[in-house]
């Protein structure tokens, strides 16, 4: 639907997502093996609850899109109620339900008031969706059609086309290569039996992480977590995924598209959560392309040359090596120029590293803005999900500033030259006319 405020935001790409700050985290297990993470936030009469499973598209197996469609089916019918009735149950009490499925994680989320007439009703419905999905056939047919339409919509978006080609080029045979939404062929082949089997295998307590942030006591949080998971089988944690292989050689993919801009995405496998080089890579990239308008990339591409509205680089740390991704969009006839500036900026950074002054500025930015990262329940819940899902230490937030401050120029230089190879990048260009003239 159209945005309510017709805002035109001026820029600043999102830098690498990062855990920070120190709310008091409590952690325990449910009786059937689910991991629970709780932060008490008594100020507002509301609670955010998420249940996260290692059940993203990395677990798709043969048919890409299995995980996403399974996740999307959960609120289509549960405990004998249909999609209409489920929607009414939540909205009658002002609760927000949402589901999502990406490469690593599949999640179900609930935001509700903590009042007597709202929370118990919302929780009952949420629990049924989690533990008693009905997988109705008519819903499956409709959602399958809608996903096929979304796949069609991708084809009119140069950025979506670029993203698909990028992941495919980056990950080859690894499960991360596929887009979570799948493709026309795989989605067409899906059926209910596949989804129900996926649900049965992965939506189990031993594979569940429960996040609670809000105006509830620890005792209430314990009861809620038990209630949510008690209807699930204990099950098993999924087996470890294959490692991501480094790229053997550079790859370039050029896709013609009738757009006035060329969208460029470049990168290689980057780092995982809990990576030993995490902080040196994170702080280094912050200087190179992760700090919005003040990054080196923004300075070279946008400030000095006016080549692109947005230019960025970020690590997306995942269970296995997530992408280290660079990107920009520019008028077709200057695509090659913009790409070489972006690439040269990376080459120079690997070569020379940051200056001492740049490192100090980056540390000031990251640590000085520490409080901003956890200034709302929804942000805290997001960080808890990452801590819980990736088994990061509970002290991670407490030691974050220290870890950032400990990074040196030498470490950044060393880690970038060891981990990042500018000669082995996947580069995707999607755009119009002028591309035909390039190699």
């Amino acid at each position, binding site marked *: 639907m159209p945005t309510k405020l017709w805002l035109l935001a001026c820029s600043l790409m999102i830098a690498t997502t990062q855990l920070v700050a120190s709310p008091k985290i409590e952690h325990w297990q449910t009786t059937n093996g689910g991991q629970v993470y709780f932060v008490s936030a008594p100020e507002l009469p509301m609670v955010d609850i998420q249940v996260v499973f290692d059940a993203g598209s990395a677990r798709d197996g043969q048919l890409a899109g299995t995980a996403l469609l399974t996740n999307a089916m959960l609120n289509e019918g549960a405990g004998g109620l249909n999609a209409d009735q489920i929607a009414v149950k939540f909205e009658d009490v002002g609760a927000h339900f949402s589901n999502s499925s990406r490469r690593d994680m599949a999640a179900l989320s609930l935001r509700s008031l903590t009042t007597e007439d709202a929370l118990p009703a919302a929780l009952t419905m949420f629990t049924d969706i989690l533990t008693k999905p009905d997988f109705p056939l008519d819903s499956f047919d409709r959602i399958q059609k809608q996903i096929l339409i979304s796949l069609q919509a991708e084809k009119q978006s140069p950025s979506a086309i670029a993203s698909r080609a990028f992941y495919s080029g980056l990950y080859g045979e690894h499960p991360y290569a596929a887009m979570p939404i799948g493709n026309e062929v795989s989605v067409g082949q899906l059926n209910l039996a596949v989804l129900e089997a996926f649900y049965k295998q992965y939506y189990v307590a031993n594979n569940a992480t429960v996040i609670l942030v809000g105006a509830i006591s620890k005792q209430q949080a314990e009861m809620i977590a038990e209630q949510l998971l008690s209807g699930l089988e204990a099950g098993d944690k999924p087996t470890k995924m294959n490692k991501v292989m480094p790229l053997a050689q550079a790859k370039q993919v050029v896709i013609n598209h009738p757009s006035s801009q060329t969208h460029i995405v470049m990168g290689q496998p980057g780092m995982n959560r809990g990576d030993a080089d995490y902080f040196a890579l994170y702080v280094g990239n912050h200087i190179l392309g992760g700090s919005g308008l003040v990054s080196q990339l923004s300075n070279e591409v946008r400030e000095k040359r006016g080549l692109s509205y947005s230019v960025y680089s970020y690590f997306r740390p995942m269970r296995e090596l997530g992408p280290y991704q660079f990107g920009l969009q520019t008028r077709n006839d200057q695509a090659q120029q913009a790409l070489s500036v972006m690439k040269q900026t990376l080459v120079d950074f690997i070569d020379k590293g940051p200056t001492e002054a740049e490192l100090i500025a980056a540390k000031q930015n990251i640590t*000085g803005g520490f409080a901003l990262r956890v200034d709302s329940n929804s942000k805290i819940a997001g960080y808890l999900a990452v801590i819980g899902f990736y088994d990061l230490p509970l002290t991670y937030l407490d030691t974050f500033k220290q870890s950032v401050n400990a990074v040196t120029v030498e470490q950044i230089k060393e880690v970038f030259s060891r981990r990042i190879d500018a000669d082995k990048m996947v580069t995707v260009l999607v755009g119009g006319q002028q591309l035909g003239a390039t190699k």
Partner: protein
Amino acid sequence: MQMFKNIKLGYYLLLAIPTWVSADVTEYQLENGLKLIVKEDHRAPVVVSQVWYKVGSSYEHNGITGISHQLEHMMFKGTENLGPNEFSKIIAANGGSENAFTGRDYTAYYQILEKDRLEVSFRLEAERMRKLVIDEAELIKEHEVVAEERRMRTDDKPQSLVREAFNATAFVNSPYHHPVIGWMSDIKNYKADDLRDWYQKWYAPNNATVVIVGDVQAEEVYQLALRYFGPLKAEVIAELKPQIEIEQRGKRTIEVRAPAELPYFMMGWKVPVVKTSDDSLLWETYALEVLAGVLDGGNSARFSRNLVRGEEIAASVGAGYNLFSRLADVFIVVGTPVKGKTVADLQQAVFVQIDKLKTELVSDAELKRIKTQVVANAVYERDSVSYQATQIGMLDTIGLDWQLSDAYVDNIQAVTAEQVQAVAKKYFIEQTLTIAELIPLSLDNNQQSQQAGDNNAH
């Protein structure tokens, strides 16, 4: 949209005394006309600082469309005492995040900082409120950046092209006719002096509102504002011409042909907004807001229930109404049909839903559900200091009392089923309807080439 009750003090004193005080909001006015609104929110040790100017694309005339947005970009490019991009560097070094946005009715700049850094924001914002330097060389580069922004946001997005063409058709003489980012030929032809004039005209303390939300004490913020904004000189601010949209005398339909895969349409009816309504008809705007909720207020609303599920005719369908804008607006419906159905089929199904609103009263259960959601959302919104600040700044800048934000829940609660039916009958009429349809052109010139080993693309 707070849950507490405001207490409006029944007196107004000069200077240094808050002009309004409520449970946690305090409003001040400086001698130079600058308005300061402080909302204390002590949940987290952060503060959001926003400076709102009463200027946006609806203040612009043809030929310079988008100039407010271009000026917003130039506000980061140097002042008498700050070099290009230095503003952003100082904010970054203080751990802040910052940005700016331009709308039809406002231009706003913000920083989010740890609470003890508010002074940095005030020092820099006061500097660029009166001491901007528009440098020719910087402007030439920034033209290109904005042109790229337009290509990205609009030119290469078929649905954005439809929205732009729709507005340019629905609005004839209202400045809502032209896009916030401006027409490309205007973007390419602003001169440095155009921007200097625009800045001189609108950027002054008596045309600005500073909104602060966070872990601060109002009186301390006021003292800080006096120190930094107090010395700035006021400007004579021009009075805007009313530019009231002419009466629409019949349905307007247009087609937009663009490379695309999916069909799409946008339609809208002329409707009033809070700012343009007489007190006696103010209820209409809240009834329209509730009506938007009946159609599209969540997964249980009629569009999802009947058109996405139910008839399974819409791949997506949405309704939108913005009751807080400076000038009269449109109530919009957009949609994409499922495969095998046409735009006409989906429009027909939408009209059936609209007709039902005219002929049948909304059920008590639906009405109650929408009101419950509004009450709950008013709590959820308080999870974000930025959202709270934006609500206050937006209302004030379009010329409304920001306390309407608090009254919003009560005004929605007061809406009856009969009122929803009445506004449906009154405003959803063919005479004021505009429809824009996207006619997809083939994208089919895709050729993919893979070049393993070739890393050097010059």
